[in-house]
């Protein structure tokens, strides 16, 4: 690890440009936890309407990068950043940017399902209620749409007022996805959404991601390379805090341009 990372960082790009253009651009992004640098000059774009996967071995910084996008890392003491993350040409690390407003524009799904201890309907309508929306009709409409979009509607239709903690793990995760899209975000951030789920539930979530493609821009962190290969359009491979290769998913997994990527996707390390 060099102390002063070179500016080009050696990243190899061959990603597919989205038909709807670019939504987000990460420019020379560096991040430190205290004195420990976790991200080194990351440069990449997120294409609108695409599913972008972040892969890499544990501790490579992919979750850190994802959490930097909606500034969830702000909660950590002693965190410093350098560089820009542009969302529609606005730098989200600009001091004028309202973090709360920023997060409203982004939905996030976590590793472990984290439904709130309230009813299913209240869970889904939470982003609206914190916005101060009290109109029962709008709330109800949003709940129905979000649950339908997250393919949970048929299973919970008749028990919307039940406690969300009574759902199964897979249902809880789909509920969290419904909650994430209820606020009508531009981007959906998913941090290993299937790592706590069984294969059947995982398959359902993957189908759901596939359905959401095009409607939402999705950034997904995953440990599961098959999953990345199945659901994503572009894949970014990260290693030791650096972006090594960012390209079309099919090429990353079949014929990557960097040796390190090849070693990782074929399972020689990681």
């Amino acid at each position, binding site marked *: 690890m060099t102390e002063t990372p070179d500016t080009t960082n050696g990243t190899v790009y061959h990603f597919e440009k989205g038909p709807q253009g670019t939504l987000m651009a990460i420019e020379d992004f560096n991040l430190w936890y205290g004195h420990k640098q976790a991200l080194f000059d990351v440069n990449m774009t997120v294409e609108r309407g695409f599913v972008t996967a972040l892969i890499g071995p544990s501790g490579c910084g992919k979750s850190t990068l994802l959490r930097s996008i909606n500034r969830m890392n702000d909660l950590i003491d002693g965190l410093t950043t350098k560089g820009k993350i542009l969302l529609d040409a606005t730098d989200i690390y600009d001091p004028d940017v309202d973090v709360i407003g920023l997060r409203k524009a982004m939905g996030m799904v976590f590793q472990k399902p984290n439904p709130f201890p309230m009813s299913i309907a209240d869970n889904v309508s939470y982003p609206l209620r*914190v916005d101060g929306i009290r109109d029962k009709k709008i709330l109800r409409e949003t709940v129905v749409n979000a649950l339908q979009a997250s393919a949970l509607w048929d299973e919970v239709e008749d028990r919307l007022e039940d406690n969300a903690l009574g759902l199964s793990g897979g249902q*809880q995760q789909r509920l969290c996805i419904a909650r994430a899209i209820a606020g009508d975000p531009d981007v959906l951030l998913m941090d290993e959404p299937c790592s706590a789920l069984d294969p059947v539930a995982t398959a359902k979530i993957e189908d759901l991601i596939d359905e959401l493609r095009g409607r939402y821009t999705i950034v997904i962190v995953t440990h599961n390379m098959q999953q990345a290969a199945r659901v994503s359009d572009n894949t970014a491979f990260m290693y030791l805090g650096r972006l090594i290769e960012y390209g079309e998913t099919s090429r990353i997994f079949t014929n990557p341009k960097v040796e390190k990527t090849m070693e990782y996707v074929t399972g020689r390390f990681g």
Partner: protein
Amino acid sequence: MKTRRNKENSARDDEQTPTNAGGTAFNSEVRLNVNSKATRQGTDEAASAPQLITPQRKSMVWDFKARGEPFLWLFGGGLCVGIAMIIGFVVLIVYNGILTFYPRPIQVVLLRDGSRLAGEVARAEDFRPGPEVMAKLSEETRKEIAVHEGFARRTLYRIGNFDLYNEDFRWVVDYEISGSTTPEDMFFIERMEWGPFIGTIKSLDLNGKVIEKSSLSMETLDAEQTRGAGRRERIRGIERGEIAAVNHYLEEERLKLKKVGLQFGQKSPQYAEAEKEFKTNSERLELQYRDLAKEVAAIKEKDAQYTIALADVSGREKTLKLSDIVRFYPANKLTFSGKIGVYLSRWWEFLTQEPREANTEGGVMPAIFGTFCMTILMALLVAPFGVIAALYLREYAKQGRLVSLVRICVNNLAGVPSIVYGVFGLGFFAYILGGNIDRLFYPERLPTPTFGTGGLLWASLTLALLTVPVVIVATEEALAAVPQSMREGSLACGASKWQTIKYIVLPRAMPGIMTGLILAMARGAGEVAPLMLVGVVKLAPELPIDHFFPYIHLDRSFMHLGFHIFDVGFQSRNSEAAKPMVYVTTLLLISLVFAMNAASIMIRNRLKRKFFTGHF
């Protein structure tokens, strides 16, 4: 063979100490001989003299230290001792408390010297008579005592009739007794004054119409006593209710005038006007007062015509007003249902009436009410204080050395002796805060203090201060137990920090906060020492809540069960008579604390069910 065993052992090492399995695998051969969990040095020592014996599975060798049975017995024993102490205490209190009000038979004891006494048996014990006492005894008695290794038995009788005998209880040694009976005409009569009377009823004088004992039926007695009690209640109602109200309004008028005087000066036109108004109003009230006083006098005069003539066991007579009798029953003639009736009516009196006779008789209703009010008020004050402080410490403050220091200080506050809080409460709350409130808002009442002395508000505040560390610590723990993923989930939805706390963190931490509040209430309700300084009194003339504006009087002093126990048990003229009352009051205090805790636990469990169901 050797390699195979080596492998086997290293595999087992893997299971036991997965972190350094690789490092220990090479000398597992020698460790076979070591039965106890060998330390690293131990294995090196054994390695110097290697010898191969039949391998023995280490896990199957009985090891005293590893098994932990001694610790099981130690921990279990500790728990048992704790539980035994608690159960013993509760059983003692409940047994004595529950039996206190059960009517006992009256024994008439004939003594050797020819005198008689009548009373309830309180208790009996063995004692060793002194030599000068022994010298006066007969040969026979001395022999009898010698047989019992110098011990004689004596019995404590509750003889009542304090006005005749100047004592309530009397010890009688067994050898003084020549015989005892339980005559059916003995009555136990509880009076408004002088404690109980034990004796027979001679006659009844109903406004000149005399009914002798022979023609007196229980029904007539009951009916006349009830009527007498009705007159007593009427007098009390007028004196404590209507006359008290007139006095209250009269005082208000006086204060109003004084206030005008202070505001505008005694020579101002406003004062003259107010004085005129005061005169008309006070004259009207004085008139009312005179009418009421006349009515009371009339009832009292009539009441004095209804009397009952009693006689104690040796024939000394005593005449009482019928209205002075609280309760009476023929102790030796009572059926079981009659006894239960007396028992329940005594409990009812205890729970709903005011105390009489320097708190040793009557009820404790004002004390129950005072304790309840104070505890609720304390909980209402301490909950926001504690929760807000804990929220700041846990959610907002930057965790560092300063916050740790604050936390340690808060924990240490819980160890300050409660009397110190009492002194602080009196000095700061009552004298400084209360004194200033009086000067600002109640200048007309000075020099009589309103808030400038101990009272319900200051007592509650003092106890809130005393219990706030408990709430802070419990709340902090409850907040820390809320999973970080919940907070992140909420923040990721675009909620602000406060919204996250309000909608997610606080509801989820509520059961833990309730636990802290329950602990605080239990501690606060049982605390007496600081209260003695900041507002608890032996006998409060008025309840803190009544029908006079502003209805809730936070400035008033109040009664408290804990202080009542202290007062009855250690400050009354007759500690023997007070003992049962101490048990009953303790039982009541424990029940009250238990009931309040049970209520909060129920609320907590309801909250818990809401937040802790499901899979995770």
